[in-house]
């Protein structure tokens, strides 16, 4: 007995593939773009060793950048959200730098960082930093005031207030920040790799573009998307462990 929702979903995907095929084969402009069938065929020409090496390279950079972003961004977000002094000291500087898009930093990273690997990791860190800081800061400052008030009545001290009340209450928002951050980190990795030519999925896609193997380009795009989605799901899974109390999970 077919599940009607699943059938609808499959049909939506099929319609998308159909529209894609029609657009490419029967209109004049897009004939350079491969059809879904061509992309599917390219799947079988994938050299598994190569692709997994590149996936691994990108993943390592994403992980490093993300963890650095967490290590540096999370305490800063907590400080700005919890302490008025830290807010006055740190927030203006952060706000000033934030509008600068990560990619605009590429020329400067070449100056500051000696090797390409550290340049790439800096860019991924930069991408992860702001969502983490802002969502942590927001989560902490927006905790329903009645919760800390109740805790105060029960006689909690200042350290206990931060660890036992404020942080657990802010967890959902903090995890939202992490999900956004990992998405931007992937964005940055791919962009940096396309420019830097030092391996990774971005480089792999760019290489196939230079040799005009477009089915591989599109396949690469799909793989990047899949990796990003997997990371997002990974954060959800970790989040559901920390936030068992939410019915949604």
């Amino acid at each position, binding site marked *: 007995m077919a599940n009607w929702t699943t059938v609808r979903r499959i049909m939506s995907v099929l319609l998308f593939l159909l529209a894609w095929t029609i657009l490419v084969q029967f209109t004049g402009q897009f004939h350079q773009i491969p059809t879904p069938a061509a992309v599917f065929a390219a799947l079988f020409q994938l050299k598994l060793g190569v692709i997994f090496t590149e996936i691994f390279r990108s993943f390592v950079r994403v992980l490093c950048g993300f963890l650095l972003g967490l290590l540096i961004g999370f305490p800063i977000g907590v400080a700005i959200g919890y302490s008025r002094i830290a807010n006055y000291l740190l927030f203006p500087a952060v706000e000033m730098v934030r509008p600068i898009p990560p990619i605009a930093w590429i020329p400067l990273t070449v100056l500051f960082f000696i090797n390409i690997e550290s340049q790439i990791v800096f860019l991924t860190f930069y991408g992860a930093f702001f969502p983490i800081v802002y969502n942590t800061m927001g989560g902490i400052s927006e905790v*329903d005031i*009645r*919760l800390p*008030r*109740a*805790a*105060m*009545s*029960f*006689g*909690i001290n200042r350290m*206990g207030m931060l660890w036992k*009340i404020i942080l*657990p*209450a802010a*967890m959902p928002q903090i995890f939202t920040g992490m999900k956004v951050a990992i998405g931007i980190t992937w964005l940055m990795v791919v962009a940096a790799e396309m420019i830097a030519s030092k391996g990774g999925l971005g480089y792999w896609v760019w290489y196939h573009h230079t040799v005009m193997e477009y089915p591989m380009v599109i396949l690469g795009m799909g793989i990047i998307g899949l990796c990003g989605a997997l990371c997002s799901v990974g954060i959800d899974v970790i989040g559901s462990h920390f*936030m*068992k*109390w*939410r*019915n949604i999970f």
Partner: protein
Amino acid sequence: MVDSNHKGEVVFENVTRAVQTKKTETIILDHCSFVIESGKLTVLIGPSGCGKTTIINLIAGYEKPDRGKVLIDGKPVAGPDRERLVVFQETALFPWLTCYDNVMFGPLATKVMTREEAHEQAINLLEKVGLGDFLYKYPMQLSGGMMRRAELARALINRPTVMLMDEPFRGLDAMTRELMQEYYLRLVEESHGTHLFVTSEIEEAIFLADRLIIMTNKPSRVKHALDIDLPRPRIASVLRSKRYLELKALTLEILHEEAVKASMASGKADIAIDSGLRT
């Protein structure tokens, strides 16, 4: 006739409290004075916005009066303390803790009893409020009524001197509300503690109270105070007694005056008291 051993007597002496917004200062309480007698259930009723929550915040220690004094057993309220605990209209249970952990929070934080004692009392209290089967559930898994009961247990385990209830049964359906009132009355009548109960429902107010304090509009002060001399324990049949109906009519009359003033002052029909008010 004040007993010098009174525990939980709250005195408001000429309290003024204003709230600052960017452009204006709104005076909520203006030279407001009253006494909440220890060991009694005092109910505070009044039009919407008359500062009932402010009064609760002042007694709990979350706010300080701009002028005047708030005294507990003769001493000014210095800040939040487990002597004065609040059950809010919207739940303030810690959503990341189970019912059991929520109730254990106070004793564990203040270390006034051993873990074993606290554990026993927590289980007892939760069973008494009917949540024995829900000890390890999270607040999000509970209904509104269940959450209120858990909050009651969370407060009561600390044996507070004064229990402050800020419209705790608002938003519950009629049946649940009735049940909650009965639960609450049983707990109050057993413990003989000092309770301040804020509500905007007249029937609930008279049904629960030993003493009824009626507030004016803002800037608020006490308009009238009534002793509710209905027999205890209060049971549903008291709602049909002659004395109850007299008290209800009297309260309605007093509140009507204030409600009319409120709707004229604000320019909108601010009918906050919802039982049987006719314009």
